[in-house]
């Protein structure tokens, strides 16, 4: 077995190092692409490269916008509950 094959197989036996920061949210993007591609592949009547790419890109965009809006709303709610409400009540939430 060559060194390259060994390295390749070994990379599947140990997890990657992924921090729990905001940048790790970017892992969402490939997943959204995969979901959009497979969904559109089952929906379109015939797969033609340009039309398929266009429809998939539109779906990816829609999902990304919706996820961003949902994240902003949730962030706002969390900020209200953990920062603003305790300040109004005169104490910490924790």
């Amino acid at each position, binding site marked *: 077995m060559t060194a390259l094959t060994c390295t390749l197989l070994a990379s*599947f036996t*140990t*997890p*990657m190092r992924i921090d729990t920061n905001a940048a790790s949210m970017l892992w969402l993007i490939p997943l959204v692409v*995969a979901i959009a591609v497979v969904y559109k*592949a*089952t929906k379109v009547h015939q*797969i033609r490269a340009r039309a398929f790419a266009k429809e998939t890109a539109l779906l990816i965009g829609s999902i990304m916008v919706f996820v961003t809006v949902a994240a902003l709303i949730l962030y706002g709610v969390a900020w209200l509950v953990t920062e603003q409400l305790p300040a109004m009540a005169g104490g910490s939430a924790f």
Partner: protein
Amino acid sequence: MPRTWKDNHALFLIVIGLLAWIVPGGGHFALNQRRRAIVILVTVVLTFLVGLYAGSIGVIDPVNAKPWYVAQLMNSPAVFFLGQISASGQFPVFGRAGEIGQIYTSIAGLLNLLCIVNAIYTAHLEGLKGARA
């Protein structure tokens, strides 16, 4: 009595479903939808492999993560054998990488389930068309 296995509608649908499960896109390939089959194969396999690469083979955990394992099994029966290997517990899985790996491999499985259902439905429609013709 049915003349060919395609004439036996239920058997035809089962075979298409099994093909779609064994190899992602296999059902559509059998229905002569080659492009669709290739798109499905590449996307599902790539998503599954990215999940395994991120979280290690240990994300397939038939012992401690059964609901995730059920979704992962939808990728292919080959996942069952990977589960047997990882059940020994010698492959570490932890933290955000483990979560991402689990999500990727499970979503890949659920996407393939969508394709299996779609392939069976398409085969059913083709069968109806054939019966009318």
